[in-house]
């Protein structure tokens, strides 16, 4: 089976031969792909596929057995990657005891974002009502929105979000997708998503991952072709055909 590694050679970021082990088990196996500037790349796979590990490996937060992350053909050391990409992990509660407004203000300052930008995010994510509350007291949906605001305040050209739609109802998810779409005009995104219907709505291309193996990468049409399905096949059909 031939896997299209996708994208142009001088893409924003190229990941080559990334492998990662936990003890004796291989959790990422020789993953290679290129991210195209301005796209939303969906990292698709079931729970335990290695999506979070892949994002943390790209960020340089966790050690890898082998592989490189390159930009314009030059290998980036983990410290250098901080200038290029921002990774927003799933299920975190930064500074949980302090007011959301204080936490957002802190991240606005360290990212150098404008006050108007934060105000726009507060409105766009409907955070007004919870600004005075501590993060630890919020519902899962609100926590997600605050984390999303923190991520969108960052300046790095590549934004990686782990499960950004988890905990949102359909209407909220659509609203967040709209917000991300507006932001993608300025930056590239990699979204780790396990719900295929949501991924299909927002992503330009898809990277299918299962048990640490790269099954395919490309547009839905290209993946359907790779899976031997009709061009109008759904992402779910493609994923099932490739696994």
């Amino acid at each position, binding site marked *: 089976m031939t896997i299209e590694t996708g994208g142009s050679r001088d893409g924003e970021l190229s990941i080559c031969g990334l492998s990662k082990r936990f003890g004796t088990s291989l959790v990422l196996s020789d993953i290679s792909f290129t991210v195209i500037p301005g796209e939303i790349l969906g990292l698709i796979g079931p729970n335990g596929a290695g999506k979070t590990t892949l994002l943390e490996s790209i960020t*340089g*937060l*966790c050690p890898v057995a082998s592989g490189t992350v390159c930009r314009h053909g030059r290998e980036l050391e983990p410290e250098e990657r901080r200038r290029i990409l*921002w*990774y927003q992990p799933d299920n975190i509660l*930064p500074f949980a005891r302090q007011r959301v407004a204080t936490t957002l203000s802190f991240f606005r300052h360290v*990212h150098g974002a404008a006050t108007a930008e934060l105000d726009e995010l507060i409105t766009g994510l409907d955070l007004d009502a919870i600004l005075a509350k501590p993060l630890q007291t919020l519902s899962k949906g609100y926590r997600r929105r605050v984390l999303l605001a923190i991520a969108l305040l960052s300046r790095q050209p590549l934004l990686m979000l782990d499960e950004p739609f988890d905990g949102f109802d359909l209407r909220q998810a659509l609203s967040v997708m709209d917000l991300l779409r507006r932001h993608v005009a*300025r*930056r590239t995104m990699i979204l780790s998503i396990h719900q295929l219907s949501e991924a299909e709505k927002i992503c330009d291309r898809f990277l299918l991952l299962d048990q640490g193996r790269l099954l395919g990468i490309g547009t839905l049409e290209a993946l359907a072709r790779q899976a031997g399905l009709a061009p109008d096949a759904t992402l779910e059909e493609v994923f099932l055909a490739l696994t």
Partner: protein
Amino acid sequence: MPLPEGPSRARIARYLLGQELRSLLLSPALWLLLAIVSILVGYSFIQAVALYSQASRTALSFPELAAGMNPLDGILVPTFGAYYLGETLLLPFVAIRLIGLDKESGALKLLLQLPLSPLSLCAIKLAAMGLLWLLILLPAGLVLLFWHKMGGHLHLPETALLFAGHGLYSLVVVTIAMFAAAISDSLPTAAMISLAVTLGSWVLDFAVSGQGGTMALLGSFSLTSMLHRFETGLLATSHIAALLGLALFFFLLTTFWLRPGRTTLSRLGASLVLVGILASLLAGVLQTSSALDLSENRRHSLNPADSRALRHLEGTLTMTIHLDRRDSRLLDLEHGILARLRRAVPHLVVRYAATGATGLFGASEDPKYGLIEYTYEGRHDQSYSNSAEEILPIIYRLAGITVRAEPVPAYPGYPLVADAGPTGWWFYLVIPLLCLAAALHGMLLNFYQTHR
């Protein structure tokens, strides 16, 4: 379209420092530490003043006893004993939060992506803790103020040295706690590791007291033992270097273990290299150690004429001591004239001859037991005395020199009869209530914000 450049590292560092201070001030552990320290310090101070006053009454009746009334030993050291407890048992619980809380909440994953190195990140956290340590010193500041208001005497250099000693000790404890948090998955584990080191050091100091050989050497490097040396007014570069070296060691280890993308094996390797470098540096510093007597009563100094004469001894002075390590006479000798000779004589060799001593109630079978032999450039002498008045003339005789003591002003002593009882309100009520209010403010605010 490229995004605009972010703020400078200095600005990010400033915001992060503010964030760290906020996090620590929101922590009830900090206020609990301050409240407990305040109560302990207050109790120690009031008791110390009562005992000092009792002794001072006698000293005022018999002026020759006044020289023994020293505020450093009588008031400050017992009062700071309360700080020792707080720094050893409670400070680790506050300090582990610097790293542990961010690690547990996931905030560390975000902070490590900021354009700051783990070294800068840890330095900012340490700086925040340092600023809040000044808050913890509030009861100590009140002690100095009240003592001064009562008419008590303070000698600034030895008082400053005492503060510096506790500052360095706290620095080591904080860096140990940071390292423990960096290598642990949870706050309770980090707390256990920190306490194991600080309490272990305490136990080690207790266990080796009165023992000799390797155990004594090991004990002299315990944190407790190093802190105690600052309580005597002796500013020794070896003590400062040892505490600073330990703090630097644990601080750098923390940064190694927080550096993202490194395997455990590479972190262990870097840690081992660090151990090697630090051990070499410390060995070098200890070889060239020097000391300055900052005590007002010059307890660590010889007469200036003696110091000058001893510094000019060119040959090697060898002292062979026939005393058991646990013998109180040896302890008196070590802490008295021998400690001063080690600092003054350029080439001094001290040998501890094996003895047949059987302890406190057993008589030694060695006929030389208790003897101290002196050899200088082939000349030999011996004595059973452990007092400076007898030992120095022996050394001068062997060296063939005559030394006439210089007149130095005698330490007058500072007897004072006072009652510190009324200050108890501040230590037992005002500060603890303020701490309680600060801790409750955070909790109530949280409750109100959650339920409104």
